[in-house]
């Protein structure tokens, strides 16, 4: 359910801002939104399709349409006109940044929801560490995983993966849960998208190039996959089947008119063809998947399904429990309720916790955690069909570094304490926060 107030005002004005930003980039740089490539250029692109990363186009004049922190400002300013936002403190004053009273789960409800992460249930990410003999849990868990795959049981796979997926089985398990099977028609569809990339040049292509160069290419884990990222994201922009997800997304795809035919509906088209304008960090949704899938059309299908099921909720405004607004509120509420001293201290020094954790949640922690930990986290996103675990992990990270955070005296110092998450082990953090903290 999307609240009318969120849908009509904030998402609408946010979208208008994005459109204006893209339009001004077009006029400033005198570049069209889209154009057909001349034949020579098409041939050239086809030849270097597998090594687009070697290209070094001049992207200095392009800037990302928006970054997560711009989006955060929009969320902070969300107001319900029917809500009492008086000056006097009341029992429900929101001390965090989000001022929309959505219903979020508390720890008892989270413990029930994430019951398989409990202390008495085996987990990959905890019970497969080198000190634990594999006969206690790991061997049996792998055996069950193989059986689930043999039966091709998607529902069982989703239940199974709540305890984590063995590395060897992960690619197949995710494909089973997401209902991806590479039929010849899927490979053909991907080839058709590739043809569309060759034929038409889009402005968003430059935005994608810039994003990959700025983020994934600079990342120690992901730079090797640079070429794959172009092959996926450029095709993704041309995929009109993605438009289908706008039926349950409060956002609307941007529109344009074929040159010169402004206002005539028969010349109206969506731009980009998939309706999704990438923002700074967008390519990080794809990068971790490159560890699992090496065949471009399968990698593409997996990413597309992950996007229309989960990732789109992280950058559009809605009241859905897995939407970014609810995740932000869940994070702030958990921190305020279970770490009140830390929350109060950070507020006092001008370091609202959400300002630090927002970028982690928007990217589903991609690029912040070590890849094996990230994949264990995304196992649980698939298993529970919910993004709420991102908010819980964010709160757990703050809880873990609480002692250091209590000693900082500025936002910059707090950011420094939480700058490096690459050594964190995700599952123990989650387990301790949910099941082993005295509340």
């Amino acid at each position: 359910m999307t609240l009318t107030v969120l849908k009509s005002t904030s998402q609408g004005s946010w979208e208008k801002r994005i459109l204006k930003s893209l339009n001004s980039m077009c006029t400033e740089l005198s570049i069209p939104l889209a154009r057909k490539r001349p034949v020579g250029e098409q041939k050239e692109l086809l030849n270097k399709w597998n090594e687009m990363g070697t290209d070094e186009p001049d992207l200095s004049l392009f800037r990302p349409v928006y970054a997560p922190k711009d989006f955060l400002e929009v969320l902070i300013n969300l107001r319900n006109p029917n809500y009492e936002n008086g000056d006097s403190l009341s029992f429900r004053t929101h001390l965090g940044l989000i001022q929309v009273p959505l219903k979020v789960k508390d720890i008892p409800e989270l413990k029930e929801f994430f019951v398989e992460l409990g202390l008495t249930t085996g987990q990959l990410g905890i019970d497969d560490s080198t000190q634990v003999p594999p006969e206690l849990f790991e061997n049996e868990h792998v055996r069950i995983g193989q059986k689930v795959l043999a039966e091709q049981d998607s529902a069982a796979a989703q239940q199974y993966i709540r305890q984590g997926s063995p590395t060897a089985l992960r690619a197949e398990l995710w494909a089973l849960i997401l209902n991806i099977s590479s039929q010849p028609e899927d490979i053909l569809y991907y080839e058709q998208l590739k043809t569309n990339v060759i034929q038409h040049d889009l402005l968003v292509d430059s935005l994608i190039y810039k994003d990959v160069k700025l983020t994934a290419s600079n990342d120690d884990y992901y730079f090797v996959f640079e070429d794959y990222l172009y092959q996926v994201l450029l095709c993704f922009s041309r995929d009109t089947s993605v438009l289908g997800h706008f039926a349950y997304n409060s956002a609307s795809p941007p529109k344009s008119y074929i040159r010169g035919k402004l206002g005539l509906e028969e010349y109206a088209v969506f731009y980009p063809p998939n309706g999704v304008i990438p923002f700074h960090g967008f390519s990080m949704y794809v990068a971790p998947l490159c560890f699992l899938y090496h065949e471009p059309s399968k990698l593409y299908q997996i990413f597309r399904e992950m996007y229309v099921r989960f990732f789109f909720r992280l950058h559009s405004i809605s009241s859905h429990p897995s939407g970014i607004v609810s995740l932000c509120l869940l994070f702030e509420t958990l921190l305020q309720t279970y770490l009140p001293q830390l929350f109060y201290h950070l507020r006092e020094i001008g370091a609202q916790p959400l300002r630090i954790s927002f970028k982690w949640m928007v990217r589903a922690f991609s690029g912040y955690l070590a890849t094996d930990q990230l994949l264990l986290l995304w196992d649980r996103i698939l298993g529970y069909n919910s993004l709420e675990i991102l908010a819980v992990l964010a709160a757990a990270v703050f809880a873990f570094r609480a002692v250091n955070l209590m000693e900082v005296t500025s936002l910059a110092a707090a950011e420094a304490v939480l700058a490096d998450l690459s050594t964190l082990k995700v599952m123990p953090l989650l387990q301790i926060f949910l099941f082993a903290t005295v509340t």
Partner: protein
Amino acid sequence: MSRVSVPCHVKGTVALQVGDVRTSQGRPGVLVIDVTFPSVAPFEEIMFKNYYTAFLSIRVRQHTSPHTPAKWVTCLRDYCLMPDPHSEEGAQEYVSLFKHQMLCDMARVLELRLILRQPSPLWLSFTVEELQIYQQGSKSPSMTFPKWLSHPVPCEQPAPLIEGLPDPSRVSSEVQQMWALTEMIRASHTSTRIGRFDVDGCYDLNLLSYT
């Protein structure tokens, strides 16, 4: 079964409050909406859009028997529209309530009174919108089945084979197999769209549209 909208007159909301409305600090937590009908109507369904109402009670004034005067009876008591009155869940949903959910018989309704409650002080106002009452539409005309469908005759003996023609049951099974094959081919037809995004091969765009 079709439903027919019942014409009704929805009066304005009346707030129930102790003391003077202008001087007291708090906002009213109880509102009453009266709905009158020009003629006595059998009630089937009530539909509305909620706007931050937490609990709904409905009282109905009707004749319980033909010769007694009409009385007020509660037909819905504290129906929960918002599981948590302090948060947004359920605050703007469309709600349908049917006669089988009511505590009393709703055959001859003269007047309805909706009692809205919102105990949370967080909301500036609350009400229900787009109120519509429905009564049962006329039943679809009953169909009488042809005799041979409702009373099938027992299996007849097949007629004796005419010389020179193939066995009809063998022919029919072969035809059935061919039909099954064509159905299989038809069913495996892919529904994947080609996904063209251009108009007649042209996708030259200058600027995005704001409308």
